[in-house]
C-alpha cells in the first residue's frame, strides 16, 4: 500500500490570473499523479495551462497569477503549505525544471560554467573547485563534447540543441527525484528534437527519476510516456496508460487529437490523398470559459446537458480516468 504512493499527487489544482479584465482560469481543477521512476506525459493545446501548472509545482507562478486552490503532494507532503524557505530548498535539488525555450532560459551574460556551478555550490555548499568536475561530468552525460571548453563559453555561442542539453544538465545537477520538462523540444529542429527526447529517456531510466513531460505533441508522448494526461482549457479530459490512450481513447477530445495526428500509413499527397482532420473551432478564452463542459462547442458528441453540467473525473477502468458526461462522469452545475 505505502509502496504504491505516488511521488507527486496533484489534487484539484487551480491557478488563476487576476487581470484587469477579470479572472483568467488558466488551471481550473486539475488532478494527476506521477509514480516513482515513471514519465507522465501531459498533452494539451497551446494555452491549455501546461506551463502554468508546471510552474505551480515549484510555487513559481508569475504574478498576476495565484494558486488559489488544491493540493500538491510531493512525497506525501503538501507543497502549498511549505514555507518559502522550505520551497527554495526543494527547488533544483528535489524538483527541477527543464524550460520550453533554451534561447531565453539561460542567462546571456554568464558563462555556462558559472551558471551551473553556482547552483551546485549553493545547494551542496561545495566549493567551486569541487563543483566544476561534477559539472563537466554531467555535461558529458548530456552529450556535450569537450565539456571543459564549453564551460567557459556563453549561451549565445551555442546552438539551440546544445543549449537545451545545458538546460537538461542544469536540471539534473543535484540528482532530483522529479523533473518537470516543459515542452523541452518544441523550440528545436525536428532532427534535434529526436536526439533530445532520446537523451531524456535515457537519463530518466539511468537516474530512475520521475518526469512530467509536457507537450502539445501526441507523437512525443507516444515515444516517452508511461502514462498520459490530456488537458483542455485548464482541465483534465482523460488520464490512462499510454497504450490505452492510443488504442482505446474514451474522451472525445483525446480522439480528436489522435485523429489530427499525421500517420505514417496514410498518404496526404497524390490523387487518393486524405485530408488530415483538424478539430473545428478554436481553443476557448479562459477569461470567460464555456459553461458546462469546456469542450462542448467543439465536441462532436455534445448534447444539451453538456452546456450546463461540468463533468467530474471518473474511473472507467482501473487507472483510466475520463471526464465526459457521455462516458458516465457525473456532472455538476458550474
Amino acid at each position, binding site marked *: 500500500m505505502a509502496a504504491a504512493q505516488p511521488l507527486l499527487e496533484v489534487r484539484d489544482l487551480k491557478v488563476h490570473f487576476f487581470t484587469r479584465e477579470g479572472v483568467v482560469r488558466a488551471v481550473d481543477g486539475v488532478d494527476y499523479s506521477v509514480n516513482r521512476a515513471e514519465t507522465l506525459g501531459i498533452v494539451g493545446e497551446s494555452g491549455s495551462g501546461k506551463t502554468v501548472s508546471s510552474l505551480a509545482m515549484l510555487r*513559481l507562478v508569475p504574478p498576476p497569477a495565484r494558486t488559489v486552490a488544491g493540493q500538491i503532494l510531493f512525497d506525501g507532503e503538501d507543497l502549498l503549505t511549505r514555507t518559502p524557505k522550505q520551497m527554495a530548498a526543494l527547488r533544483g535539488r528535489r524538483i527541477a525544471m527543464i*524550460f520550453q525555450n533554451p534561447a531565453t532560459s539561460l542567462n546571456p551574460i554568464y558563462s555556462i560554467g558559472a551558471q551551473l556551478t553556482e547552483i551546485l555550490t549553493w545547494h551542496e555548499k561545495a566549493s567551486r573547485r569541487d563543483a566544476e568536475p561534477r559539472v563537466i561530468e554531467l555535461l558529458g552525460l548530456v552529450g556535450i563534447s569537450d565539456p571543459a571548453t564549453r564551460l567557459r563559453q556563453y549561451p549565445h555561442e551555442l546552438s539551440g540543441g546544445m543549449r537545451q542539453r545545458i538546460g537538461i544538465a542544469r536540471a539534473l545537477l543535484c540528482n532530483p527525484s522529479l523533473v518537470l520538462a516543459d515542452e523541452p523540444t518544441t523550440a528545436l529542429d525536428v532532427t534535434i528534437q529526436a536526439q533530445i527526447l532520446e537523451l531524456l529517456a535515457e537519463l530518466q531510466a539511468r537516474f530512475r527519476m520521475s518526469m512530467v513531460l509536457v507537450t502539445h505533441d501526441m507523437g512525443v508522448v507516444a515515444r516517452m510516456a508511461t502514462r498520459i494526461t490530456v488537458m483542455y482549457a485548464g482541465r483534465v479530459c482523460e488520464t490512462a496508460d499510454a497504450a490505452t490512450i492510443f488504442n482505446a481513447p474514451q474522451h472525445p477530445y483525446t480522439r480528436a487529437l489522435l485523429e489530427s495526428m499525421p500517420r505514417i500509413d496514410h498518404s496526404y499527397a497524390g490523387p487518393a490523398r486524405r485530408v488530415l482532420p483538424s478539430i473545428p473551432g478554436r481553443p476557448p478564452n479562459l477569461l470567460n470559459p464555456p459553461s458546462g463542459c469546456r469542450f462542448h462547442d467543439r465536441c462532436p458528441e455534445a448534447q444539451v446537458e453538456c452546456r450546463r453540467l461540468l463533468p467530474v473525473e471518473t474511473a472507467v477502468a482501473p487507472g483510466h480516468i475520463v471526464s465526459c458526461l457521455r462516458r458516465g462522469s457525473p456532472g455538476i452545475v458550474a
Partner: protein
Amino acid sequence: MGTVRYILRRLIFSAFLIIGVSMILFAMINAIGNPIEILLAERPGITDEIIESITQYYGLGGSVTDRYFTWLGAIIRFDFGTSIIYNLPVSEMLLTYGLETLKIQIPAILIALLVSVLISVLAATRQYSRIDFGVIAGAMVGHSLPGFLLGILLILLFSYWLGILPSYGAYSTRNLLMDSMVIDGLWHMVLPVAMLAFFNTATLTLLLRASLVDVLRQDFITAARASGLPERRVVFGHALRNAFIPVLTYLGILFGLMLGTAPVTETVFTWPGLGALYIMAIQQLDYPLIMGATMIITFMLVTATLLTDIAYVIIDPRIRLA
C-alpha cells in the same frame, strides 16, 4: 587580443573625434569675427591702432589655419590662453572651477547610483504594487521638478529655517567650521550634492526600474529561481547586471558631461563650479574660456564614451568586437 585591439582602435577614433570637435569649434568661433573688434569697437576712445595691438597680444592675427594650429599646439600643452574677463590663465581656471564641480558631481552620481539601485529593486520586485506606483510617481515628479525650485526649497528649509547648513559657497568666508578645511568643505557640499543626487536618482530610477521589470520577466530569471537560488542572488546576481546594460549609456553620458551639467545648482548655491562659469563665459563672449571649457568637456565626454564601450564589452559577452 581582440579586446586590446578593439580598445586601441577606439582610442584612435576618440583622438580623431576630439580633433574634429576642435576644428568645428574653432571654425564657429572664427565665423563670429574678431572678438576684439566685437568687444571694443563701440567703446569711445578705441582707435584702430589699439585694436590692432590687442589683436596681436591675443594672437588673433594671421590666417585662420595658422591660428588654428597655434591654438591646437597650445591646448595640447594644456595652454588655453588668458581669459578676457578675468585676465587669468584659462587652464588654471578650468582646473580650479572644474575640481569644484567634480567635488559635488562625483559624490552626487555615486549616491544616486546606490539609492536608485535600492529603490528600483524594491519597486521592480513588487511590480504594480503600491510601493511600485509610489516609486514611479515620485521619480516622475522628481525628474520633472525645476532645478532652481528644489534648490530654493532646500535653502529655505535647511539654511533659513533650520539654520544648520550653509546656503552658498564652497567654504566659509570667515570662520571655518570646527577650524577644519575638510569639515567645512564637506559641510558646504551637503546641499548642492543633495540637489544633484536627487535629480540623478529620479532619472536613474525611472530607467533602472523599467529595465529591471523587463529582465525579471525573462525565462532565465524563472529558471534561476527554479534552480533553487535564493531571491537575493536571483535579483542582485542575475537580474540587476542584465538590467544595467541599457542604463550604461546613460551613466556614461552622466559622467562624461558632468563638468557642464550643474550650472543651475552652482548658481543657486553660488558654487564656484565650471558649469556656471561656462555660461557666464558665453554670455560675456570670453572666447578663450569658452573654447577651453568646450574642449575640456568634449575630452571628458569622449573619454567617458570610450570607457562605456569598454564596460559593455566586459559586462555583455554577446557584443562582437568587429
